[in-house]
């Protein structure tokens, strides 16, 4: 009997030990691989299922900036190409732009894989990466996050943003305005005027802002330099001009013209700082936006109505740029 008890005790011990050595594997690589495939397929199907395309409102890292920059995308999942519309003329390039959906570290990865508006803007410092973790896929939204923060020695993960499925087309960039001619040609009211005034109002109740602006064309040498070396001009194809604000013609900032937009752009990689950094930053701070999208130009070409939207696509800034005699 004593032996039996000893055996029972031994059995209990063995059982407990065996019980402790077993574990539930939390993953199976075959299943993981299949799951990633399923996720990637789902994402591709969702990207394709958008006749009007998608829009990403890319927020500015500066939280004082109310606006976000819209990039409209249409995906052709059969050829893994996409087209874009944006305030940046590079979106009009005819080169096929490629994308991929692939597996990455812990999340599917949406890569704008070849040179495009994303890589150009990344190099310009406007968006922190050109490949994005896909965080969540909903019926009408896809949450994405830039893989990197965009600066040396910073951790992974930029500002999360949403791709929103468009229920109706966005036409903001369909009819380009000739802003170069409008603001810089000798016959332009904005060159003949005594003063040009930009007035903006804000939907969040902030006090309206007003800025007097005198526009200048760049000389050929400056144009050549900017178009050859400055990513915002070279890669985004924004046309560089200069603007003197509030009546100080000796202290002017770069001001960039797209087909349908004006941009103040801070570029930390170039000097002099007042031209590339300080005054652009001051203009952005004053206007609470780094860009304005042109809604319409009056028949006499002396009034330009502008607006900007926030990261949800809501119109948060409206305004008028007026050439006053």
């Amino acid at each position, binding site marked *: 009997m004593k032996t039996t008890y000893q055996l029972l005790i031994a059995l209990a011990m063995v059982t407990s030990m065996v019980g402790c050595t077993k574990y539930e594997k939390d993953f199976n690589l075959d299943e993981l691989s299949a799951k990633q495939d399923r996720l990637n397929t789902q994402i591709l199907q969702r990207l394709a299922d958008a006749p009007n395309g998608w829009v990403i409102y890319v927020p500015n890292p500066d939280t004082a900036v109310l606006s976000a920059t819209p990039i409209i995308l249409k995906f052709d999942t059969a050829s*893994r190409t996409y087209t874009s519309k944006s305030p940046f003329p590079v979106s009009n390039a005819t080169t096929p732009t490629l994308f991929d959906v692939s597996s990455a570290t812990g999340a599917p990865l949406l890569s704008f*894989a070849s040179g495009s508006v994303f890589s*150009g803007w990344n*190099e310009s410092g406007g968006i922190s990466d050109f490949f994005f973790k896909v965080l969540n896929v909903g019926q009408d939204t896809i949450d994405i996050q830039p893989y990197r923060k965009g600066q040396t020695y910073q951790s992974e993960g930029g500002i999360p943003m949403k791709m929103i499925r468009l229920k109706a087309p966005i036409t903001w960039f369909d009819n380009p305005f000739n802003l170069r001619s409008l603001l810089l040609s000798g016959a332009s009211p904005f060159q003949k005027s005594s003063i040009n005034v930009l007035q903006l109002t804000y939907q969040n109740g902030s006090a309206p802002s007003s800025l007097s602006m005198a526009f200048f064309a760049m000389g050929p040498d400056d144009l050549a330099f900017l178009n050859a070396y400055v990513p915002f001009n070279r890669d985004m194809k924004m046309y560089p001009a200069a603007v003197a604000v509030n009546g100080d013609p000796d202290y002017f900032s770069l001001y960039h013209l797209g087909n349908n937009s004006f941009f103040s752009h801070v570029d930390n*990689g170039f000097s002099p700082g007042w031209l590339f950094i300080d005054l652009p930053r001051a203009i952005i701070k004053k206007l609470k936006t780094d860009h304005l999208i042109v809604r319409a130009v009056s028949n006499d070409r002396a009034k330009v109505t502008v607006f900007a939207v926030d990261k949800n696509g809501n119109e948060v800034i409206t305004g008028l740029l007026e050439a006053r005699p």
Partner: protein
Amino acid sequence: MKQVIKLSVITALISLICFSCVKDKQPAINDTIDYFPRGALRNGLDSLIDTIQQKYGLRVIYKFEPRVIDPTTFFVPAKYDKAKPYTKIVVEKMWLEPISIYAPEFSKHQIPIEFLTVGTGIHFNSLNSGPAAGAGLNAQYYRLGMGDVDNYALDRGWIRDHICTVYHEHAHQLDQKFGRPVGYDQVSQGTYYDLQFQYKTDEQANQDGFFTAYGGYLPEEDFATTVETMIRLPKSEVLRIAAINPKLEKKYKMVNAFYLSKGIDLHLMKVKLDSTVMALVP
């Protein structure tokens, strides 16, 4: 009763032993988890890249993902419509093919296995954009990366100039792989300009024992610019410049011998590249 207990215990032990002998299912280890999509659609450039890889063992990478660029690099992919002709004309026709014909041993052993087509400049922080190439990227055994691909044009001058930079960058790779020739760094030791090279002319550099002002920056660039000069200029001109300063002549001979030992005559390649570019862009 005692027998029942004993029987139960023995049964339990046997069951336990059998159960313990059941092996876990071995996790399936496979190579399917990767950053690149499986079964991805292929375009004309993909096919060209496959062909080049099969022929020369080098794979051109034109799509950038986390596996391709690490978090501390800030260069961007080339546009597709530039990367495709660049791969065909520069990588295959101007670089790999002539080397495989006129320097087969060099082609077999010294060509990297990856080649990145970078759209603009190569830079290693988020602020500063570097020039067309980037020694930092190319100071590794297996991968060469070239910038400025978005500026590719089927232009004889652009292609001929760019291939000099390719050889320059590849020289950095060979430098990392083998080290510079013994005694090379001692020839001009103490006379390198460091960042003062920006204020020197090439003529001044020749007098001081370097082929270019940039070559006077430091020994790594001295080595690479010597290679670049040998690909750019006729042999007679290289010899004329080398004769300006005994140090320069000594280093030139070291570099020439280094490359000959690897199976490539840079002076011959210069001639062949001239004729190749003429054939490509009549």
